[in-house]
């Protein structure tokens, strides 16, 4: 919790800032130091461990499930968690309306959340960073047009925009990744554009220009590395919001469709049995919250270490 508390207190001149290069960020100088720092930051370490566990479960989930997650067992429908009266020891978190093991389904659901979360962020990052670099560096009419477009884009709630595109194109994992990516790139474009605006008047960029280097080379060699820290932080925190968005869409029945298992779908099923079987609607949500919490902790820690300026 320390990073949360110290966010404004530690600003210029804090211990974190002094470890960075003269320009406030020279990311190559101290990955080793940062790793040591991670082990000393309880928040960062917790985040890293949770994220590592979630990634492990996502990768090897199919070997970890105690039961076949798709196997229905109508004699054992709506069995409560094992520690509750009527619970069975072989179903730790109980079973759903078709007798499927909830723990196994949560384990399998991790795959979709992680895959969609990371891929959508990659799509959003590539689109947003490209737009941000181009408009920030070249300015002019393109920049004006993009700013107006962003204003319009921001006027439509993200979830409604995503829902509509999914409704038009039809649901599916690949569609979902691209839709979430293409509706979430605005943040990157804004941040990168802002940073590029200030970077492009720096001496080393001017010097590169004077040497006759091409615009593409300047952007790739001199500008992009300097905005990378902000992009990494933004991307990490974005994985968290994307996981929540994916689960919301699946909850609404517009995201990933059965038989692929997702946490959002499980919660949607749970809503129908909420008055009789509370465990259906409870545990998938716990899984989402823990995963997102891990990513947020890691992201907040990265922000403190990589880019103190983003902390406000």
């Amino acid at each position, binding site marked *: 919790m320390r990073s949360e508390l110290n966010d404004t207190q530690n600003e210029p001149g804090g211990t974190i800032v002094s470890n960075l290069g003269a320009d406030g960020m020279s990311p190559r100088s101290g990955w080793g130091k940062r790793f040591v720092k991670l082990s000393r930051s309880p928040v960062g370490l917790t985040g890293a461990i949770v994220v590592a566990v979630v990634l492990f479960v996502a990768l090897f989930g199919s070997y970890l499930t105690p039961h076949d997650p798709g196997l229905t067992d109508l004699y054992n429908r709506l069995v409560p968690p094992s520690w509750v009266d009527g619970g069975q020891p072989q179903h730790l978190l109980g079973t759903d309306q078709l007798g499927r093991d909830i723990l196994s389904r949560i384990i399998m659901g991790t795959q979709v959340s992680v895959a969609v979360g990371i891929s959508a962020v990659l799509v959003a990052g590539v689109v947003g960073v490209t737009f941000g670099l181009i408009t920030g560096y070249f300015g002019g009419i393109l920049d004006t047009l993009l700013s107006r477009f962003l204003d319009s884009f921001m006027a439509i709630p993200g*979830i409604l925009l995503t829902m509509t595109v999914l409704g038009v194109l039809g649901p599916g994992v690949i569609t979902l990744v691209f839709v979430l990516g293409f509706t979430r790139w605005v943040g990157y474009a804004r941040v990168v554009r802002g940073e590029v605006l200030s970077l492009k008047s720096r001496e080393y960029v001017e010097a590169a220009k004077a040497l006759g280097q091409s615009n593409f080379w300047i952007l790739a060699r001199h500008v992009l590395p300097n905005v990378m820290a902000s992009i990494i932080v933004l991307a990490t925190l974005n994985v968290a919001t994307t996981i929540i968005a994916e689960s*919301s869409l699946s909850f*609404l029945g517009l995201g990933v469709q059965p038989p692929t298992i997702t946490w959002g779908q499980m919660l949607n099923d749970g809503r129908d049995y909420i008055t009789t079987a509370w465990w259906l609607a409870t545990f998938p949500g716990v899984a989402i919250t823990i995963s997102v919490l891990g990513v947020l902790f890691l992201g907040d820690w990265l922000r403190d270490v990589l880019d103190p300026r983003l902390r406000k």
Partner: protein
Amino acid sequence: MKRYIARRLLQIIPVIIGVSIIVFVLLRLTGDPVILMLPEDATPQEIESLTTALGLDKPLHVQYWVFFKNALKGDFGRSFRFKAPALQIVLERMPHTLQLAGAAMLVALVIAIPLGIISAVKQNSAIDLTASTVSVLGRAMPNFWLGLMLIIVFAVVLRWLPVSGKGTLSHLILPAATLGTGMAATITRLIRSSMLEVIRQDFITTARSKGLSESVVIYKHALRNALIPVVTIVGIQTATLMGGAVVTEQVFAWGGIGQLAVLALNMRDMALVQAIVMVMALIIIFANLFVDIVYCIIDPRISFE
């Protein structure tokens, strides 16, 4: 002042045109909006007559112009599900969504303002620590899941409140709490940092050095300045609020625009979807306009030029 408002009004025109272009493009992503607008069992004759009626056999810019002219008149086409003009159905449901959004904003501010101020004034105290913990949890928890948990606790176990539906005040409490507490997490953090910034300014040091009591310094000098950004926060949060309403309405079967959007998308009632996206965007655009104007009135440091 009048000039500022006039200029600000002019500024929203390109934004509205932009939104209309986005909506127009969205429905043409598959290439043929007619298929989307008609029920799946539509006959070839129905498809052909709607294609001609919407002018889809004409070039794209002509199509957009027709769409834009109709939208200006409030004509987004007819909803085949409700057999009525799409806009009319959306406007009928709108008061429910506004009621939920308003109540949620109230819940959020009632929690966030005192909590944000106390956290800043008593920095690193137990209250501050608790507030940050809860705030991080609020960011990590999907809002609709919080809603489900509140239903389990207050409607199923304690039986104090109804599970879902609308009508009475008791129906409003759970959805408003769900949507409001989620937002309170964000707003508390913003108010805390705004207050911290004000406390460190020179006039606060001056007030303290004059020998004023701490409570006068905090509540009379700092608070009034720290609350100004709250107005902006309310504006920025409108989009989040409307987006959150879509999901929350679904959890509680609230019957506003949000639930209508999910229904319309599942029914592929695209005329209705168009109208919903446009109306939501207009609510957000005008809420932000209103907030900008209020901001200028309450903060004399802003110049209108």
